[in-house]
């Protein structure tokens, strides 16, 4: 009996391994291989089109840490990530609370609010560039019509306008993700908690801070974690909006990786930047894991 059980267990184990093997192989092909490739390439000086180069050891890393470009790009990346994330969370929670109410056309509003998130980045950027346009853009037109400004404003070509514009577009594009997640959580908060709070004399503001927000805490940690990682590595939207300019004032780390790899044809240095980016994100991840562990998991 025990031999049969062992055989059955072995068969189950084999079946389990066979079932999981394709996933593991795909994981290795699309995650592990590129990761180790990037680390490997970062020790070389590599001409991108031919992928030929020479061993340079840690000199790519020492060079990037010594040049101001890395620190400037890191600073820009943090400003963009924090600024955009902050607005996404505020907007996302606010809109989710509105959509949780029993308002007219709630279903239609819930569908429309997702529109920015689903629209292609290229299309979104084209629309925003048109809105920001100094000669024909409706934003300048309205601001001048109302009398707030006398001459058109340069939204994307001067600082701090460029960074603010990028952050605003980023927040507009990605806040629906927060809305979806928060709205789902709001719908599962027991109504009895609000009733008890009401009986205790809590007003709407107190109910939000004492009931809603604590209930949202876990989902917000996940949202902040995911969006921080995604925003940190955002490339296409910033590249298309400003190209990293003016000067390199909106040049984030992903744009720097792209420039090293394809404008300067130095895949080794680009890989070094990418590896450092990964290490920074790893810090986010470790903080997150530690936090969730302390809390007994999400």
């Amino acid at each position, binding site marked *: 009996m025990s031999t049969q059980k062992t055989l059955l267990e072995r068969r189950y184990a084999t079946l389990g391994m066979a079932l999981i093997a394709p996933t593991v192989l795909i994981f290795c092909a699309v995650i592990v291989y590129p990761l180790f490739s990037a680390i490997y390439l970062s020790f070389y000086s590599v001409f991108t*089109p031919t992928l030929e180069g020479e061993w340079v050891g840690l000199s790519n890393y020492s060079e990037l840490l010594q040049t101001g470009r890395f620190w400037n790009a890191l600073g820009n990346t943090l400003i963009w990530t924090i600024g955009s994330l902050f607005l996404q969370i505020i907007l996302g929670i606010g809109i989710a609370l509105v959509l949780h109410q029993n308002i007219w056309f709630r279903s239609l509003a819930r569908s429309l609010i997702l529109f920015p998130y689903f629209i292609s980045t290229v299309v979104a950027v084209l629309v925003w560039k048109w809105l920001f346009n100094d000669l024909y853009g409706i934003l300048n037109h309205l601001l001048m019509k109302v009398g707030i400004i006398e001459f058109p404003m340069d939204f994307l070509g001067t600082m701090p306008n460029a960074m603010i514009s990028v952050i605003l577009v980023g927040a507009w594009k990605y806040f629906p993700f927060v809305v979806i997640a928060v709205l789902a959580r709001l719908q599962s908060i027991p109504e009895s908690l609000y009733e008890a709070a009401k009986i205790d004399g809590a007003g709407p503001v107190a109910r939000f801070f004492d009931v809603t927000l604590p209930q949202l805490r876990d989902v917000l940690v996940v949202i902040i974690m995911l969006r921080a990682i995604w925003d940190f590595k955002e490339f296409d939207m910033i590249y298309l909006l400003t190209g990293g*300019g003016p000067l390199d004032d909106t040049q984030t780390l992903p744009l720097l990786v792209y*420039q090293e790899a394809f404008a300067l044809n130095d895949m080794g240095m680009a890989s070094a930047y990418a590896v450092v980016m990964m290490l920074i994100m790893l810090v986010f991840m470790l903080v997150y894991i530690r936090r969730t562990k302390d809390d007994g998991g999400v």
Partner: protein
Amino acid sequence: MTTHSITATRISRRTALMGLTASTAMAAMPMRARAQSAATIRWWSPQGAPAQVAAYEFQIAKFQELHPEITVVFETTSDEGYAPQLAAAFSSGEVPDVVTHLPSFAVQSYYANGLVEPFDDVINAIGVEDFYPGANDVFRTADGNYCGTGIGNSAANMMWLRTDLMERAGIEKSPVTWDEMRTALAAMQTGGIYGAPLPYGSNSMTSLIFIGFIHQAGGQVFTPDLQVALDNEGTRNALEFYRELREYCPPGATNYSWGESLTGFVSGATATGIYTGRVLANVRDQNPSIADSITCVTYPRISEDVAPWTFNDFPSVFIPAQSQNKDAAKMFAAFLFDPEGYIQQLHAAPGHVLPVLESINSNPMYQDNDIIQKYSQEVDLMASAAAGGFNLGYESTEHQSNDKAGEIIGSNIIADLVQKVVLNGDNVDEALSTASAAIENIVRG
């Protein structure tokens, strides 16, 4: 330090993943085999305006009629995106077979790294004697071969003018010098119309256009034997003048590239423009009300003692060395110059891409175009200016070919120099020193 082939290492690593990819490869094999026997040619170009693509499709259809065993597939890249796309293609070995309309310096750079097939036999097939004298000099390589040829010429920094606004402002003649230009812009900038749509953005257009200003001030970026010479009197004068011109440009010019600059003039928002002959077709199609009031001249320079310097990126045609269909690609590359199709391609953007063959320019079919006839003076001027044009890869007839030009443009060093001095008001000495050092760094590799 020894040089290693990272490619070879990649292949061996891929081999380690053979178990994963074997089934996919097996499934793909019959398709690849069919593709090879059918000799499918992939043609890449960043020039993808609908009228141009229609002309390409016409050329492809004609070629396939003559060679039914060959299929040609056209794929669009972009001016800003071709470098990463080609880098990925070269490093993966999945290259297009024919590439057109890339600047000459990009082709020189690829050839210097063994990525491009010598093009001499295609030039011979087209007819060496039919090219304008010196038209292929920019494609001559260090080993004496040609890395490609021009599929056209472009005069990318022509100054476009609104004659009606000039008349209204009392400007009697087109500006030739910077002083005259400054006076003209100041006079025409009125009533919501700006003087010029010059680029001040972090992009290649700013670099390419400003290099023109350096030469129009009598300066240069490199010496003829390719020593970095950016810090010179010409560059300093060009920076000063470019800074002065900022007040005549729209506020958003700090983020302008080719599209915004073109639209600025065509829409009537600026009194002058800086672009190729594409202005002509766009004005006809998008703003015909100014069609009778536009003309062009070569861009003004610091004084009449300095010769005009026209930026010609020498739109090229070349064949990647890794192409699996070189013979078919060479046949097709030569066929692109067949008069019927070539003229249709040129007519798709009249004045924008100018012919490189003398027989085409004099061909009645080429002249039989409403834009070329209406603006014959402007088209002739652009043709002659482009024929004597230069770019960073070929700064003058005395300069050696510079295969680092593409990386210098891609690095935005020149655009950053402009932004630092003009927008930030940084110290010119420091900005020039930083830019020179950065260019030196790229040259040294």
